[in-house]
């Protein structure tokens, strides 16, 4: 068991993360960059098929099981760990880097988990490590981190309950394709959906992620939600209601991002939106749609990290993240602007970028299944993505008005990370066959046809026209938008305060009542036993002698009578 775990591709990053605090800050560069590369090499050395089985507490565990799907996700997680580490080299907070490495490693462990118990263990390690990443940002992130971990522990409880039920009924820990046809499997699905950021409890994501540091959110954007997409593809492909859940996430993300002022929260809503596309693909469930969901997870990790690196650079160099405080930064941050735009074009599925070659497959999956409504909604959503992330983010951060801020591009390592991920976005867009070769199902899809390119360009550019024509309605205000987390952040607090007041009032009432009772009792006591009381006062000697004589006389009489 220990040997299998040691040779898992998860271990370099997890162990490296644990040892990192012992490494001097100026010696960190080599291990931070080498560990993800080592993990990547180990991923591709793994033979396909079930790995060795270990016995643990009477359960059959399979710590490492490799196939195309798990290797695809593990590969992009390792690439992400590399890019994220490069970007975060000048992050002075060791706790964040250490937690981020463990977090990345655990996500690789989760996608290789061959059984539900191993999956659960990595799942929980991810929850703890990611919360540490959030908390590393300091006091401002404390409350949000607490809310974040509460939701993830709740998700973990649902998952654990489901796994326990599944093991009890089937006597098997195997993690394979299933249907939500029993309570335990429905609980497993619910646990997965919590991490995917599914509506209606998606609020944890835009609440917590934007509180992380400039580098922390880059890591956070990648692993939790995409591990959830992986387990949905593996466990619940073709579960129809996922189509509608996914579409709800897609539109939730767009609407909330349109209303948002914080640049990193715009991108957080956009994560929910993008994961929505993937969940829809899982729900459609055909080979084409599942390929689409898997490849979209791959490309999304890279372009979303790129967008957040660009936003993180702005945050680091200006200390600001509200659109209303930003604008005009293209003058002095040209590289950050260009990289941000490449990320924005990729997320919008612009031809020649990575998003175009992945998202199209999900739409194609819907078209192949003759799901007209789903296809039309996906097309409308594609236009909406360009609106809320593709134009809104770069426009309000880098152009818009002149904020008079004149920050420079960030240090070399951050620029290098952005250039690397920009190159990947464009490279995958130009040469999709490299990604298609990694997909779980054979690919018979040609993204670059004249009709498809023209359709997509029309959709996106006219969406852009709508943006600029309606700019007045999109003007940023110093506001947030209420979400479901209002229930526990406001209503819950009110409820607690009300309960507190009720308890307070009850306590006061009981105390007063007891005080009254005690006073009455002591009053009576005083009355009878006090200096003037019947039992307490001094008696005259004559009357005492009289009563004694009377009692003795009575005693004498009685003894005679007896």
């Amino acid at each position: 068991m220990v040997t299998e775990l040691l040779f898992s591709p998860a271990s370099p990053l997890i162990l490296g993360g644990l040892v990192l605090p012992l490494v001097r800050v100026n010696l960190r560069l080599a291990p931070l960059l080498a560990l993800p590369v080592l993990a990547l090499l180990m991923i591709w050395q793994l033979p396909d098929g079930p790995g060795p089985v270990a016995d643990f507490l009477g359960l059959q565990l399979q710590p490492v099981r490799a196939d195309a799907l798990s290797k695809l996700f593990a590969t992009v997680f390792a690439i992400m760990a590399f890019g994220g580490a490069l970007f975060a080299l000048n992050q002075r907070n060791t706790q964040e880097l250490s937690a981020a490495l463990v977090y990345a490693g655990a996500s690789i462990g989760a996608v290789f988990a061959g059984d539900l118990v191993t999956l659960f263990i990595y799942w929980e390690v991810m929850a703890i490590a990611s919360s540490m990443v959030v908390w590393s940002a300091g006091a401002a992130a404390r409350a949000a981190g607490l809310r974040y971990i509460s939701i993830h522990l709740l998700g973990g409880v649902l998952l654990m309950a489901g796994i326990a039920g599944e093991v009890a009924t089937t006597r098997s820990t195997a993690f394979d394709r299933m249907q939500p046809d029993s309570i335990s499997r429905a609980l497993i699905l619910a646990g997965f959906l919590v991490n995917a950021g599914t509506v209606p409890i998606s609020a944890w994501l835009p609440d917590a992620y934007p509180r992380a540091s400039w580098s922390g959110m880059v890591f956070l954007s990648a692993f939790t939600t995409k591990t959830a997409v992986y387990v949905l593809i593996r466990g619940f492909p073709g579960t129809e209601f996922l189509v509608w859940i996914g579409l709800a996430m897609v539109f939730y993300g767009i609407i909330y991002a349109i209303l948002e002022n914080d640049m990193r929260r715009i991108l957080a809503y956009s994560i929910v939106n993008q994961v929505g596309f993937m969940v829809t693909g899982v729900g459609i469930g055909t080979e084409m749609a599942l390929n689409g969901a898997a490849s979209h997870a791959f490309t999304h990790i890279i372009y979303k990290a790129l967008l957040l690196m660009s936003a993180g650079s702005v945050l680091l160099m200006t200390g600001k993240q509200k659109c209303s405080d930003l604008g005009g930064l293209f003058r002095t941050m040209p590289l950050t602007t260009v990289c941000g735009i490449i990320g924005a074009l990729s997320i919008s599925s612009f031809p020649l970028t990575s998003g175009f070659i992945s998202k199209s497959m999900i739409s194609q999956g819907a078209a192949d299944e003759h799901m007209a409504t789903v296809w039309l909604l996906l097309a409308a959503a594609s236009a909406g993505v360009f609106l809320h992330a593709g134009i809104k983010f770069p426009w309000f951060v880098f152009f818009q008005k002149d904020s008079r801020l004149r920050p420079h591009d960030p240090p070399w390592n951050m620029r290098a990370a952005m250039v690397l991920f920009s190159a990947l976005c464009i490279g995958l867009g130009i040469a999709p066959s490299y990604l298609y070769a990694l997909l779980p199902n054979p690919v018979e899809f040609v993204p670059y046809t004249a009709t498809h390119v023209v359709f997509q360009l029309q959709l996106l550019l006219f969406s852009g026209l709508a943006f600029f024509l309606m700019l007045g309605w999109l003007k940023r205000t110093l506001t947030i938008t209420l979400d479901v987390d209002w229930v526990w952040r406001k209503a819950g607090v009110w409820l607690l305060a009300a309960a507190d007041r009720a308890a307070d009032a009850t306590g006061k009432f009981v105390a007063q009542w007891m005080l009254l009772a005690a006073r009455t009792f002591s009053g009576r006591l005083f009355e009878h036993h006090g200096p003037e009381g019947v039992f307490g006062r001094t008696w005259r000697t004559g009357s005492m002698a009289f009563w004694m004589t009377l009692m003795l006389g009575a005693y004498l009489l009685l003894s005679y009578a007896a």
Partner: protein
Amino acid sequence: MATRKQTGSGQADDHWLVRQETIRWLWIGSAIGLTFLVALDLIVEHHPYFDIDGWFGFGAWFGFIACVALIGFARLLGVFLKRPDDYYGD
């Protein structure tokens, strides 16, 4: 959207990209580009999956209407759900 196509460094307040003149030309260029893009539907043979997506300029008008509807709906929702950003006390 065309305003994002180029970046450059220049004078602080009078960058060529933000001059009224440039913006006017960007609008004219965009208008020509968009018209050309819709006109491409005359040449490119579409293979519609359904019925509606075969209509002329489908991508263009559908994308435009979808975005106007999304912005309109977001604005309506904002009336009820927007709060000052210190609403939660942070």
